[in-house]
């Protein structure tokens, strides 16, 4: 049975690799058929440009700039969001007071705030980080709130049987039970951060992955855009996997299965 599973995994990995190769081959073929090869670069050209940018150090600058902004915005936003969500989920008056704002700002995408942020805070780091905080807070707060309010009734009843005070019920039962919801909220928020930072960097092009994509149009080098897109995909994948890895390590027992 064990060899069967290992074999299956090997086949799975091989199949995965095969499909990646086929997709790249299709891309190469598709780009070679493009009417204007300038507009649709092949994977090889994209790679070459990426290498050049890497060697020039340009790529590192852009990636680090974007990541730094996301890191700040995400962490501040998540912390604030968790606190807000816990308060809203625990105290009905708090929820009623903040609910209309959370709902409205959730419907108003961070991108709509970009011009306002640039007018108020300039085109530097502050405006971008502020936007990232905005895009993170409400998603995390909403998910956290739902987690706190949705703890299984029987878990709380059992806690009452054992004589838990309100505060004990909170930190011994509700808080741990809410962790998976917080994590979900944070994952969604990270996705939001990616799209927000790209848009912000497209509008105030100075540095960052968004700027890299933007420069494709300036220099008529579509490769830059493709490099940027590939970087985004890779970064997103790596960050998401790393995030889940860390979460599962540190908080494995809190996450379902």
């Amino acid at each position, binding site marked *: 049975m064990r060899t069967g599973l290992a074999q299956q995994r090997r086949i799975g990995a091989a199949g995965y690799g095969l499909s990646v190769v086929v997709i790249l081959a299709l891309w190469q073929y598709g780009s070679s058929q493009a009417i204007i090869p300038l507009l649709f670069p092949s994977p090889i050209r994209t790679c070459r440009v990426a290498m050049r940018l890497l060697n020039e150090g340009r790529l590192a600058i852009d990636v680090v700039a974007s990541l730094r902004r996301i890191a700040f915005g995400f962490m501040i936003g998540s912390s604030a969001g968790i606190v807000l969500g816990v308060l809203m989920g625990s105290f009905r008056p708090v929820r009623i007071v903040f609910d209309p704002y959370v709902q409205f700002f959730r419907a108003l995408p961070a991108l709509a705030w970009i011009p306002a942020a640039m007018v108020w805070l300039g085109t530097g780091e502050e405006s971008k980080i502020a936007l990232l905080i905005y895009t993170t807070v409400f998603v995390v707060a909403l998910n956290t709130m739902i987690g706190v309010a949705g703890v299984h009734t*029987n*878990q709380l009843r059992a806690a*009452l049987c054992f*004589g838990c005070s309100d505060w004990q019920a909170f930190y*011994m039962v509700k808080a741990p039970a809410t*962790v998976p919801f917080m994590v979900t909220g944070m994952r969604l928020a990270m996705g939001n951060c990616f799209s927000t930072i790209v848009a912000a960097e497209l509008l105030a092009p100075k540095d960052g992955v968004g700027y890299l994509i933007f420069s494709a149009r300036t220099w008529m080098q579509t490769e830059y855009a493709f490099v940027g897109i590939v970087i985004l995909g890779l970064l997103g994948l790596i960050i998401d996997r790393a995030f889940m890895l860390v979460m599962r390590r540190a908080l494995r027992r809190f996450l379902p299965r």
Partner: protein
Amino acid sequence: MGPEATRAPDGAARAGNIGVRHVTFAFGGAPAVLEDLSFDVASGEFFVLLGPSGCGKSTVMNLIAGFEHPTKGSVIAGGRNVDVAGRDRVVIFQDSDSLYGWLTVRDNVAFPLRVLGVTARERDERAVAALKLVGLQGHEGKYPAELSGGMKQRTQLARALVLDSPILLMDEPFAALDAQTRSILQDELVQISVAMRRTVLFITHDIGEAILLGDRVGIMRAGPASSIKETIPIELPRPRRRGSVEFGALYERIHQSISEEVQRALRREDSLLK
């Protein structure tokens, strides 16, 4: 492995009697679920509450546990009026979703002691002892997600026992298990409750289970506005055999009584529809 190992340090009242006195219960403006329901359970007795589905058995338990309050009448446990949930009456639920998924089996069982502020070492000792009692030794480090249904219910039982509460309230705890596991757990439950002299209020819809486990069986009327129809003492010596003649006779008698109830309920529904 006697009761001493799991004695609660806070000296909870040892009296474990339950008294339900003329209880009426209704949700808001809805018709009463229970009406003028009364029964008593003596300290150390194993009382089974039996009834057709939807008759309000779980509501009775919620009232005794203190999760709900009667609209009329009163509930007494251990000589005192029941107001809120308490350590003297521990509930074991049918769904094991009351276990905490982020805690190991041992930490789940030790949870009530943690609430009390017992030191970590003593918590562990008592938890392990309780786990041994229910036959889960060796599984202390597992998480509820890794356990089978029967093991999860055993964990609930261990958790309930660790506080040495005089009263155990069990709401159809074995209903979701397969027949073999159910049968094994039934036998073990009897052994434990007899050895530790607990008062047990056990809810079920399974007649065979009722006769196997109970010192007395209270048969409930079909809902709504349910009350106790009759109480039947089970005077079979323990250990009881499911196949014995006396068992069969009791089974027939109780089955008859419940069928009458179900028929009455159906007729009443028909007359309402007309």
